[in-house]
């Protein structure tokens, strides 16, 4: 991870949306698995419309942190305030209902289903009509489905995946599968989007596309984004603020510039000679 020194931190230019109030407040979170402490007393906050990155070496607790935020893991200590609601523990469906959507480090799509169907599942929690009317595609169920399809088509158009709309996901190359996963998260019209290494394993061109999409989402929909990413160039270019974790603890947070020049961060990445 020697790149950290050579990166120049450029502030994201020309953003239409003003960064607003604090939307997510993470306070004193501690998460342990048996005797292992994955996250140790970490606090930070994320503001509305912000692109916020979590970085750190492998095993620093980044993905665990995302899992805590969207309610998959339940921390032993601390509390999370999202959108004015404070709670100690959140269930995954609560967080979805509150407007938190995410993508996964390892793609978690339905491989045998088409892109369109996969993206439609992103709107599942918003479908109100009962199973029967949906099954026979009549009346309210039908109207509702049409409405949702329209929203999904917006997302498909936005992420430029029209040409693979009817293709089963399993047949797509990796980079496109990542994009489909993003589409599904976006279909839920989230307030807060959690992206777990969206560019891992991509080639340069795919990465550039993905960066563009992340910025566009933030721009057009005003979505607040929390990003985990190992590519420091990407992180420094995209992020408004960054938090650095190491061995479960927080080292520092701040703008990309501040973080880059922090001695503790450099030590954590490059190691210290004793």
């Amino acid at each position, binding site marked *: 991870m020697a790149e950290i020194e050579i990166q120049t931190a450029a502030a994201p230019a020309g*953003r239409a949306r003003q960064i607003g109030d604090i939307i997510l407040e993470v306070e004193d979170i501690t998460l342990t698995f048996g005797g292992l402490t994955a996250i140790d007393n970490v606090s930070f906050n994320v503001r509305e419309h912000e692109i916020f990155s979590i970085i750190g070496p492998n095993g620093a607790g980044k993905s665990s942190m995302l899992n805590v935020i969207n309610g998959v893991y339940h921390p032993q200590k601390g509390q999370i305030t999202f959108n004015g609601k404070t709670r100690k523990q959140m269930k995954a469906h609560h967080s979805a209902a509150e407007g938190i959507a995410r993508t996964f480090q390892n793609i978690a799509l339905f491989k045998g289903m088409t892109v369109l169907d996969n993206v439609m599942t992103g709107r599942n929690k918003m479908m109100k009509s009962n199973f029967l009317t949906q099954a026979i595609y009549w009346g309210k169920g039908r109207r509702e489905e049409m409405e949702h*399809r329209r929203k999904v088509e*917006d997302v*498909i158009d*936005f992420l430029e995946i029209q040409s693979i*709309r009817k293709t089963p996901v399993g047949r797509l190359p990796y980079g496109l599968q990542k994009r489909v996963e993003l589409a599904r998260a976006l279909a839920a019209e989230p307030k807060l989007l959690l992206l777990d290494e969206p560019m891992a394993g991509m080639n340069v061109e795919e990465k550039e596309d993905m960066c563009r999409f992340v910025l*566009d989402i933030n721009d057009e929909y005003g979505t607040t984004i929390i990003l985990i990413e190992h590519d420091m160039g990407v992180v420094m270019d995209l992020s408004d603020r960054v938090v650095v974790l190491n061995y479960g603890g927080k080292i520092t947070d701040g703008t990309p510039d501040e973080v880059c020049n922090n001695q503790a961060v450099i030590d954590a990445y490059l190691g210290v000679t004793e």
Partner: protein
Amino acid sequence: MSALDTFPKILLDNANKLASNPAIREKDYGIWQSWTWSEVATEIRKFACGLAAKGFKRGDKLAIAGDNRPKLYWAMTAAQCIGGVPVPMYQDAIADEFAHVIENADATFAVVEDQEQVDKLLEIKDRCQLLSEIIYEDPRGMTHYYQPFISSYEGIQELGAKFDQENPDFFMEEVNKSSGGDTAILLYTSGTTGRSKGVVLTFDNVIITARNGVEREGLNSHDEALAYLPMGWVGDNLFSYAQAYVAGYCVNCPESGETVINDMREIGPTYYFAPPPVYENILTQVKIRMEDASWISQKMFDYFMGVAKKVGTDILDKKPVSFADRLLYKLGDIFLYGPLKNVLGLSRIRLAYTAGEAIGPDLFLFFRSLGINIKQLYGQTEAMVFVCIQPNGEVYPDTVGTPAKDAEVKITEEGEVIYRSPGVFHSYYKEPEKTLETKTDEGWVYTGDAGYFLENGHLKIIDRVKDVGKMNDGTMFPPKYLENKLKFFPYIKEAVAFGHQKDYVTAFVCIDMQAVGNWAERRNLAYSGYTNLAAQPPVYELILDCINQVNRDLSEDPQLCNTQINRFLLLHKELDADDGELTRTRKVRRNFIDEKYPNLINALYDGSEKIKVQAQVKFEDGRVDTIEADLKIVEAQRVNIKEAEN
């Protein structure tokens, strides 16, 4: 209203007579959205008035750039409604090329598809002083463009609706001011030779040509076309715009460049246009997919394609075919041709055109034998697309048909094709000298193409006039025609023919490494590389067969009988643009080859049986290496050679 001599007048007439017929469709949000003729007329009226409200005046030019979108087509008519001239551009051109067109055309307004095109225009805005208004169709990413001269399509339409209310007579007055002799459109030539020129076409040029085409082919308001070729190209203007207005058929805009194949299948157009590479692509797709098919499917494919090859074109041309063959063909239609055409989106094709370059006879006959009426036409931007079309039932792979209605085609003494037709352009924009060079006072246009008429009245185009040479016995020698004939064989990648000021014709041939390599593998022929493969005697025999066949073809044409290839050799390397032998667009650079291989050319004429070559090869990483080889020279069979009369 007076005669229907402008597009706005035709539009209003269609909106009246075909009010509820679909005029245009676009796939958006995964569904085909349609607009009827009357809806289209309303949309165009709003936009036209909006342009006027923004200060667009009679005679102003409106630049247009983007993929085929209904709103961009509407912008063309909208400009024409108020006396303006649309200037469609190639959407993938770089900013610099945009600048040339916009500057040259004096465009004041531009309507473009999306952010990408807006960015290109902003980049060149300083150079194009007259450009005062940019209108975009797709709002994506446009939120922080604060510049006052950028507006959205809808914004202009809103403005137009208001303007129309305040000046209710304005629109109709403007429409009625224009007539057939006014400029309809300014189209830029592709510019392969120097800077592109603006071709001024009047309403009469476009509409009469379109009407003649519609009448000849019987197009009507029930036809469907797919608009997928660049809007800046004259062909798209004819097929997706002019003829659609005249015949009243529906034009379908695909969702995006990548979805064309899928969208085509959903629409099933009845009227289709594609240049030869598109057809070639389709055929390659079919072949690749057949290789993966099951054994039984492959057998069926081979068998029924055999049947189609034998009788398919005759059935299409309504020639007598035996009852048994007809039955077999029907069967083939059920099992193969029908499903195949369905997959390709070609089921409903009544009429398909190809033009732009020579099409290989095998490729051409493949589609015709399936019952797809694909025909060639010949023309250029200056003629509003076509002057010659192949008539139904008289379609031959190597001619471009007979002159279209009202078109006259002649051959000058130098063998150049010249024509006069209602579609002949008014002038090159702002370039009177160039207009005079190309067009005579009587309206004859010099094409620069060499060709001649066959006995059946069909025109045959053979080469560019400047490349056509003369053999010592006086026979004209069109190198590209011979080379194309050779290149239609899958085993031959490139060829260079010699014969200018010689007694007989000879050729260099480059094998197609992939095709010949596969062929060699199937025959267990070991080889170590290109040079080695090209020197193998069986490969020489393979190519000799091809050349003999070309010679037989040539012998049937009295004009070209003496251009049969006498001796040839297989080059030790592929012709390559990196070595300067080809242009970047893969055209042979004849002078360069004459200078580079004089001893090889001499050997072709001095009777020797082989020649040693030493050649420097530049690899892609910049290294230079020398290869040495003995090239054999082989004599081909020639038939019916006429001796020169001395």
